[in-house]
């Protein structure tokens, strides 16, 4: 059964050092308040998987020293430009980088969703990405129907996945709307931690209309309320991204000193105010 926790630090406590942590993409329900709580816990040695890309959350975790390895199709602040702590860490070699491509990350999670050890994926052959993926395997069409060579992507099962949603009910059901990658992440993850704007009494399964937008509770490990929990990123139909705040981060984080000062101010000092 889903646990309903009193505060976000209790949720952050469920992320152990060294965990394979899955992060959703920038436009898709990123639990920034929870990410800040994880940073305050000073979690270490995370293997961060971006599904399939990420930006601010991943960059902050790297800058804060929580990350040992990043597996991604891309890390970017979008309109605010490159992700400065990510770039610096890869250039210096202070984090290990495992480059992937968007559909390969989706595919690896689909394999776990389906309970199979691998799934095939088209394309990729001839990309240098493949040369650095000893875990991926190229095989000749095993059905011998002249399809040619194809890449097999091994299943990935995140230890922990984290999302922020507008709404949950009291049975652990969580509203995900049309962001179905969150369903795949949830199906593939061993532990799913969810923050929500609001917990309502009425079941999200009470009507077909809301059920269609719902992740069932039996995938959800724990939930806590976190108002404005995606800020400074946006939450569709609830609040827009705060582009000024993201731009301010992008400029502060150009240097490690600038980032550390920003972190102290925005994550540690501002904690009580913010969360």
């Amino acid at each position, binding site marked *: 059964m889903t646990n309903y926790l009193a505060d976000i630090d209790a949720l952050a406590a469920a992320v152990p050092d060294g965990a394979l942590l899955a992060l959703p*993409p920038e*436009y*898709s329900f990123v639990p920034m308040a929870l990410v800040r709580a994880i940073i305050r816990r000073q979690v270490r040695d995370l293997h961060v998987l971006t*599904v*399939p*890309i990420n930006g601010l959350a991943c960059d902050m975790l790297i800058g804060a020293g929580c990350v040992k390895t990043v597996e*991604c*199709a*891309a*890390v*970017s602040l*979008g*309109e605010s430009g*490159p*992700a400065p702590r*990510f*770039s610096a860490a*890869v*250039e*210096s*070699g202070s984090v290990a*980088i495992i*480059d*992937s*491509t*968007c*559909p*390969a990350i*989706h595919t690896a999670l*689909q394999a776990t969703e389906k309970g199979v050890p691998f799934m095939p*994926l*088209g*394309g*990729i*052959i*001839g*990309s*240098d*990405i493949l040369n*650095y993926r000893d875990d991926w395997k190229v095989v000749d069409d095993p059905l011998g129907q002249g*399809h*040619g*060579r*194809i890449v097999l992507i091994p299943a990935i099962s995140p230890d922990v996945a984290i999302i922020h949603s507008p709404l949950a009910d009291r049975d652990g059901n969580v509203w995900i709307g*049309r*962001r*179905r*990658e*969150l*369903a*795949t992440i949830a199906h593939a993850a061993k532990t799913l931690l969810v923050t929500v704007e609001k917990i309502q009494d009425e079941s999200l399964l009470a009507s077909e209309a809301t059920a269609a937008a719902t992740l069932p509770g039996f995938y959800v490990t724990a939930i806590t309320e976190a108002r404005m929990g995606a800020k400074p990123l946006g939450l569709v139909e609830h609040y827009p991204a705060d582009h000024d705040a993201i731009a301010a981060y992008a400029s502060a984080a150009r240097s490690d000193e600038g980032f550390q000062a920003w972190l102290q101010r925005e994550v540690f000092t501002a904690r009580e105010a913010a969360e």
Partner: protein
Amino acid sequence: MSYSRDEFLITAIARLLETDDVRHVAVGAASPIPGAAALLARKINGGTPRVSLIHGKATNPFCDGGREIFDAAGQGRIDVFFLGGVQIDGEANLNLVGTGTYPKVDKRFSGSFGSAFMYFTVPKVILFRPEHSRRVFVPKVDFISAPGVSDADVHRPGGPKYLVTELCVMAFDKDRRRFRLISVTPGRTLEEVLDNTGFKFDIPETVGVTPEPEADRLALLRSSVGLEVADTYPAFARDVLGVELAA
């Protein structure tokens, strides 16, 4: 009628979308110029091609999560997609990862995104990179995010068809594994293109001039199409097209 560089690029791309084989154009995140070009082509052709802007609002049709655009491409349901690159070489190899020696590159960029799949599956990929310099157009990319051509035993219905920059439009010849210059931007010269391109490419006897934006298309861009652009790219529509949505 005067126009900006971005308006010129939008109309140059839109012309490449006005053919019968283009029924569905998909545009990735933060690509306002290709997005505007697709919306302009749709307006001119009375509703085709279908235009899908991921992260668009009314123009984002995807309801199956982040996977769907790749699945749809794999199903052959997307005819045109746009890709760029930190580096692009003469065989149309794309580098979106970084410059220098991988993995500890000198300068790291975001990453390959979906290029290693979309480049294989979308029949008409248009490479778009406004900056035309030897920094971008190199003899050989430092890292191949997605290769321009593939061996015969790799299933590949898709690949590069055109390259659009601020200086010129090129076509890619898969069999010759080379770009061919089609036309040069008005006021620019073949010499400029040669000076700023680090790879060899074919030059036809007569090099055309890329048409200037047609007055009627500029008018559409600055009015009805501009409003559609503003739905997804408000800042771009305001700054480049002078169009703002009513608050």
